C-alpha cells in the first residue's frame, strides 16, 4: 500500500502532506512486495499458509513415492478433487455470511441421483417412486413461491427452469437432466435459506437436519439401487475427459488474456483518473508470471501423460477447466458486483448492512441457493469420478472435506473474509493428501484422516492467530 513514488501531476491536495497521500500513489513492484509483507505481519496472511502447506505436502509425498510428481498422477488430481473444489466454492458464499451449510453434499448427491434416474429410466415420472415425483414438483413450486415472496427473483427463475424441464420430461436428455439437477439444487437452497433467514433457525441446525434428511431422500430416489454413470459419455467426461490440445491452448489464452487485459486496463484507467494504482511494470510482472506458469502447465498437459502406451492422455483435464471457470465467475460476482459487495457487508456487519438498506434476508437466500446449486454440480462431478450415483452420494465426509477446503484456503468461519481462490487451493490440499498416501500402500487409509485433520487444525490455528494479530494492530 505504500510507495515512495509520488506523481508530480498529483491530485488537488497533494500540496498538503498527509492527505490521501497514499491514494495518488503508484504501486511499484517494491511497494507491492512491502505491502504484502506488511499485510502478512498485520495478520492478513491471504493464501500464503495454504500454499506453503501444499508445498510441504508435495515435498513429503514426492519423497514417499517417485510416482507422485509424475504427469499421470498430477493429471489425475483434478478428476479426484473437482467435486470438493466445486462444493467448497459454494460453501464460500455461505461462510462469507458467517453461516454454514452442512447439507450441500447430500443435497447435491440427491440432485445428481435424480438426474441419473431421469436419464437411466427415461422419465422421472416413472423412474422415481410415485409419491416422490409429485413431492418434487410440489417442492419446486413451493421454492418458486418462496423465492418470489423473498424477492429473490434470479433463484426463482432458475428453479422455474428446472420445473419446466422436469414437467416436460426433457430430463431424459442427459445434458438437460444435469441442468435440471442444478436447478433442483437451487430450489433446495432457497428452502434452506428461507428456514435460516426468515424462520430464524440457526443454519447449523437447519443444515444438519437437512444433511440427514437428504441422505434418506437420495435412497428413495434411487429405489435402493445405485446407477452406473460411466455409460454416459458426457457425464463420464466431466471428470475423466480432457480438452483437446488445441482447445487447451484456446482456453488458457482466453483466461490469461482476459486477466492480463483486465488488470492492464484497470491500471491505466486508474492512472488516468488519478487514483491509486499499480504501475504497468507491476501488472506486467504479475501477469507475466501467471502467463509463463500457464503456458508451461499447458505444454506439459498437452503431452501424453499415460504410462500405458496403448492410449494417449493429453490436454487440460475438463474438471480443472470447470473449476477454473467457476472460480473466475465467483470472483467476478463477489468483487465486481453490487451483490458481492452486499454479501461481504452482510457477513462483516449484518446490522450495518440492514441500516444501509440492504435486504439481508434476500442476501442469505441467494447465498444458500448458490451454495446448493454448486453442491448439485459437485454431486454430479462426484458421481462422474466414482462412475456411479451411489446410495451415499455426497454423504459421509464429502461435505466436511469441502468445508475443510474452504477453511484451509483461508476463508473465515465468522463471515466477511474469504475468496473463491481459497476454496480451490484448499481443495487441492485436501485432494493431494489421499492421492499421495495412496501411492504408498504401506501407509493405510487411516493416515489420510489423521493428516487431513492435522492440516485443518493448523489452518484454523493460522486463522485464529492472524485474527488476533489483526485485532491488536
Amino acid at each position, binding site marked *: 500500500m505504500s510507495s515512495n513514488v509520488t506523481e508530480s501531476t498529483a491530485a488537488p491536495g497533494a500540496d498538503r502532506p498527509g492527505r490521501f497521500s497514499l491514494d495518488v500513489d503508484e504501486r511499484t513492484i517494491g511497494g507491492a512486495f512491502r505491502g504484502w509483507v506488511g499485510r502478512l505481519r498485520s495478520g492478513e496472511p491471504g493464501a500464503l499458509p495454504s500454499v506453503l502447506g501444499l508445498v510441504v505436502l508435495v515435498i513429503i509425498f514426492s519423497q514417499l513415492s517417485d510416482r507422485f510428481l509424475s504427469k499421470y498422477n498430477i493429471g489425475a488430481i483434478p478428476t479426484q478433487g473437482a467435486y470438493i473444489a466445486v462444493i467448497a466454492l459454494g460453501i464460500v458464499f455461505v461462510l462469507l455470511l458467517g453461516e454454514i451449510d452442512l447439507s450441500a453434499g447430500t443435497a447435491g448427491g440427491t440432485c445428481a441421483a435424480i438426474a441419473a434416474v431421469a436419464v437411466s429410466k427415461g422419465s422421472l415420472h416413472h423412474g422415481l417412486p410415485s409419491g416422490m415425483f409429485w413431492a418434487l414438483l410440489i417442492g419446486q413450486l413451493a421454492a418458486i413461491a418462496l423465492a418470489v415472496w423473498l424477492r429473490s427473483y434470479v433463484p426463482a427463475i432458475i428453479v422455474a427452469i428446472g420445473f419446466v424441464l422436469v414437467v416436460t420430461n426433457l430430463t431424459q436428455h442427459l445434458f438437460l437432466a444435469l441442468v435440471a439437477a442444478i436447478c433442483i439444487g437451487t430450489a433446495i437452497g432457497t428452502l434452506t435459506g428461507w428456514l435460516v433467514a426468515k424462520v430464524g433457525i440457526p443454519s447449523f441446525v437447519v443444515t444438519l437436519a437437512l444433511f440427514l434428511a437428504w441422505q434418506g431422500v437420495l435412497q428413495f430416489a434411487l429405489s435402493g439401487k445405485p446407477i452406473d454413470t460411466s455409460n454416459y459419455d458426457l457425464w463420464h467426461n466431466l471428470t475423466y475427459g480432457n480438452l483437446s490440445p488445441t482447445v487447451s491452448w484456446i482456453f488458457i489464452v482466453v483466461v490469461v488474456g482476459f486477466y492480463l487485459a483486465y488488470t492492464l486496463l484497470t491500471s491505466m484507467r486508474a492512472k488516468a*483518473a488519478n487514483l*491509486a494504482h499499480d504501475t504497468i511494470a507491476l501488472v506486467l510482472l504479475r501477469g507475466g508470471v501467471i502467463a509463463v506458469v500457464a503456458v508451461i502447465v499447458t505444454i506439459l498437459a498437452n503431452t501424453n501423460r499415460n504410462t500405458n502406451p496403448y492410449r494417449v492422455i493429453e490436454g487440460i483435464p475438463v474438471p480443472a477447466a470447470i473449476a477454473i471457470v467457476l472460480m473466475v465467475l465467483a470472483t467476478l460476482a463477489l468483487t465486481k458486483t453490487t451483490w458481492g459487495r452486499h454479501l461481504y*457487508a452482510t457477513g*462483516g456487519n449484518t446490522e450495518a*448492512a440492514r441500516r444501509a*438498506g440492504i435486504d439481508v434476508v434476500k442476501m442469505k437466500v441467494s447465498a444458500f441457493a448458490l451454495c446448493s446449486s454448486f453442491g448439485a454440480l459437485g454431486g454430479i462431478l462426484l458421481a462422474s469420478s466414482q462412475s456411479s450415483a451411489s446410495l451415499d452420494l455426497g454423504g459421509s465426509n464429502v461435505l466436511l472435506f469441502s468445508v475443510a477446503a474452504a477453511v484451509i484456503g483461508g476463508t473465515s468461519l465468522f463471515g466477511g473474509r474469504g475468496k473463491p481462490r481459497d476454496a480451490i487451493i484448499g481443495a487441492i490440499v485436501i485432494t493431494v493428501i489421499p492421492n499421495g498416501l495412496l501411492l504408498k500402500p504401506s501407509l493405510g487409509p487411516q493416515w489420510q484422516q489423521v493428516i487431513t485433520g492435522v492440516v485443518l487444525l493448523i489452518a484454523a490455528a493460522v486463522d485464529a492467530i492472524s485474527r488476533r494479530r489483526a485485532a491488536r494492530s
Partner: protein
Amino acid sequence: MSDPILEVRKLNKSFGPVHVLHDVDFNVYPGEVTALVGDNGAGKSTLVKCIAGIYGTDSGEIRFEGTPVTMNDPRVPTSLGIEFVYQDLALADNLDITQNMFLGREETNSKVFLADGLMEKKARAALESLDVRTVSSVRQPVASLSGGQRQTVAIAKAVLWNSKVVFLDEPTAALGVAQTKQVLDLVRRLADQGRGVVLISHNMNDVMAVADRVAALYLGHVAAEVKTAETNTAQIVELITSGRSDGLGLSAQAVNESI
C-alpha cells in the same frame, strides 16, 4: 435569522401507558449546530427515532423546509436528505472506507458492475470537503481505523449524500482528547457548510464548544431552547436535572405534573 429547515411541533409519543414525549417542539436551523441534551430517559433517542421514521408518532407535526412530512418509514427522511449517524456507527469492518461510505448506494457501470474508481473519487471529495486530514487512503479497511477516524468516516458517509440535516448521536462518547477535538471541528464544518446539525450529547464541554443553540429535554418535555451564547453550563445542567432554571424552563406546575 432564517427559518428552521426541520420543525417538530407538538409531538406526542407513548409506549403503551408510558407517555414519553409531551408536546415536543424542536427546531433545526440551517448552518447551525443544535444540541439536544437531556438525562437518560428524557426522550432524546425516542425523539430522534420518531424523526428517523423508526417509531410512529401519536400526534404532532414534522415539517421539512416548511412542508409537512410523514416519517413512517426510514427511507422517507433519507430521501429528504436527513442522515443519522448512530452511536454504534454501523460500519462493516471488513470493507474499506469507500465501500462503507457507498454501502447500499453503490455506483455502477451499466447497472451490473461496480464503478469503484468513481466511488473512490467521490469518497475522497467528501472527505476533502470536510477538510479531513487524518485519513491517508480511502482504500484503508475500516478495521484498521481508530475510533475518531471511524466517526469521521461515518459522518462523511452522511455528507456524501448531499444531506441537509445530520443527526449525530454521541459522536465523541468513546474518543480521546485529540480525536474529540477533530470530530467537533468536523461537526462545526458540517454546519458552516449550511447544513442543519443536531448534536445529541451528554458532554457539556462539547455542547458549549460547538453548538449554536441548546434544546434541553426533561422527562419528555422541552424544558427550554436557548442560544448557547446566552447561557452557561450550570444553567443547562440545571435544565437537564430539574427542568427549570431561574426564569427559564418549565413551570413548577408542569415539572410536578410530569413527575
